[in-house]
């Protein structure tokens, strides 16, 4: 039965036009970035960075390098926005529309309903991250060489170069870990959506918290306690692009992220269980 309920939840989620805004904007954003790289002097900046590190730009001005540049930018900006939008909608939009009342006249427990909805949100987050990675590769492949190496530079963190095969592996692993970031932001918005509030309020609250957390993490005065902030752990996916991969650090981040998700779910479920559903 859980499978059918999840399938239906996905029907509801992916049947709505607004669900596709995220995918649409990713396509548009990535297309714009890659066109700007191709037809303006912007690619020379990357070329100079590669030259300064002593590598051959001809080998690294590639599909993988430009895909990574795009992913690094969009994962911090657009992705949180779209997962928060969907997470904030999952419960409160149904409460606002009145369909939640219809559902809750059925013999389904509120906790089970939330689990189904949350899982649908997770599937959306996975799909969005996949789309981000795949569209990045696709659009970059239109204008830049495919079978060349990958150059990754994250200021103040690391710089690495890889051959095509190894680069692709790191790129895929980074996306796999990025799913945890997308799920956490979605879960935060989902938690707020379980309270008696409008969908927009749930989304704005979640995004505001994520932005405040990131701003605080980036403040130089807080550099010694960076690991206190969720954004520090949410950004751990970037470490998948480094070599060697600091697995202990990723493990630590994964534990924090899991704990955060569990906390958001428990708070959301408690609030939802206690609240009265009225028209």
């Amino acid at each position, binding site marked *: 039965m859980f499978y059918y309920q999840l399938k239906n939840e996905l029907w509801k989620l992916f*049947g709505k036009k607004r669900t596709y805004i995220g995918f649409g904007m990713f396509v548009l954003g990535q297309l714009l970035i890659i066109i700007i790289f191709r037809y303006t002097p912007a690619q020379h900046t990357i070329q100079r960075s590669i030259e300064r590190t002593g590598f051959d730009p001809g080998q690294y001005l590639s599909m993988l390098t430009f895909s990574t540049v795009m992913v690094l930018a969009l994962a911090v900006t657009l992705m949180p926005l779209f997962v928060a939008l969907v997470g904030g909608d999952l419960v409160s939009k149904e409460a606002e529309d*009145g369909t939640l009342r219809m559902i*809750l*006249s*059925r013999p389904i427990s509120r906790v089970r309903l939330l689990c189904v909805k949350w899982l649908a949100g997770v599937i959306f987050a996975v799909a969005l991250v996949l789309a981000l990675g795949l569209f990045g590769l696709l659009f970059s492949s239109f204008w830049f060489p495919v079978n060349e190496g990958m150059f990754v530079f994250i200021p103040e963190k690391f710089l690495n170069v890889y051959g095509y095969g190894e680069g692709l592996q790191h790129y895929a692993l980074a996306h796999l870990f990025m799913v945890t970031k997308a799920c956490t932001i979605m879960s935060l918005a989902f938690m707020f959506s379980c309270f008696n509030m409008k969908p927009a309020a749930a989304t704005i609250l979640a995004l505001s918290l994520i932005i405040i957390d990131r701003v605080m993490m980036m403040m130089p005065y807080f550099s010694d306690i960076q690991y206190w902030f969720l954004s520090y752990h949410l950004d751990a996916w970037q470490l998948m692009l480094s070599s060697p991969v600091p697995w202990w650090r990723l493990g630590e981040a994964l534990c924090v992220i899991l704990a955060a998700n569990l906390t958001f779910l428990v708070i959301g479920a408690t609030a939802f269980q*206690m609240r*009265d*559903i*009225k028209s």
Partner: protein
Amino acid sequence: MIQLCNVQKYFGARPAVLGLNLEVKAGEIFGLLGHNGAGKSTAIGMMLGQVWPTEGEVRICGHDVTARRQEALQKVGAIFEAPVFYDFLSGWRNLEILSHYTGRTSPERIREVVDWVGLTGREKSKVRTYSHGMRARLALAQALLPKPELLILDEPSDGLDPEGIHEMRQTILRLHRELGLTILLSSHLLNEVEQLCTRIAVMDSGQKVFEGTLAEATSKERWFRLNVGDFKQAVELLNGAGLISDERDGRLVALKEGIGGEQVIRLLVEKGVTVYEAAREAETLESFYLSLMKRREKGR
């Protein structure tokens, strides 16, 4: 089928339902009446486990809704005023989605219910293309899918045109007659309740102010229509003789218990009041409801 025992509900400090006791027996069509904000929807919300009672016990089909919601709602269908669906999906898909919250439902069962409510041919269209009447039928279909024994209808005719209201009324009667369902009907339409229900309860300010059969409600007060030369004078005389308990509309008097119409006429004639017409006024649910509310208003 439905039992509410001393149920209270407060939203913050504001009382919504106070000491409500109610029992709906199997096979009844029970009407729940009351003005907006009287507490009907809150009471229905508590029956469906959507609103948690502050105090008291709500039992549906023998199960406590607060503690055993799933078991309690297994054989319950519900329709709410202005039914809402996933407009971007087809009627069929909506039925599939909603029925799977109860249990697995076969396509044959969905087809059967779609036929029963008369939506055949339109079930694959998106709900956004449905008229208000079709939405009402779809709401009925989703309520019938789990083969319910109890149907809770909260303002089912809300927003329907006269034809739609008539159709809904006939459908409710069919449900009762053909499927033997127990029905709880909350409605503002008094004549609808009068035509459908066997028993009623009236709520006001969160409290139940009347519960009984329709016959008990309409015969509770014995109104007598008087067409006389001077109604005011007649009322004074009848009041003085202790024959009536109330008067209204400049033509009706309520006879006291044990008083017959002939006593009223005799007194008026003896006192020289011209009597053109005197007859028992058939009480309607509407007149009963209005006078009940008027009395409550006076008592505040």
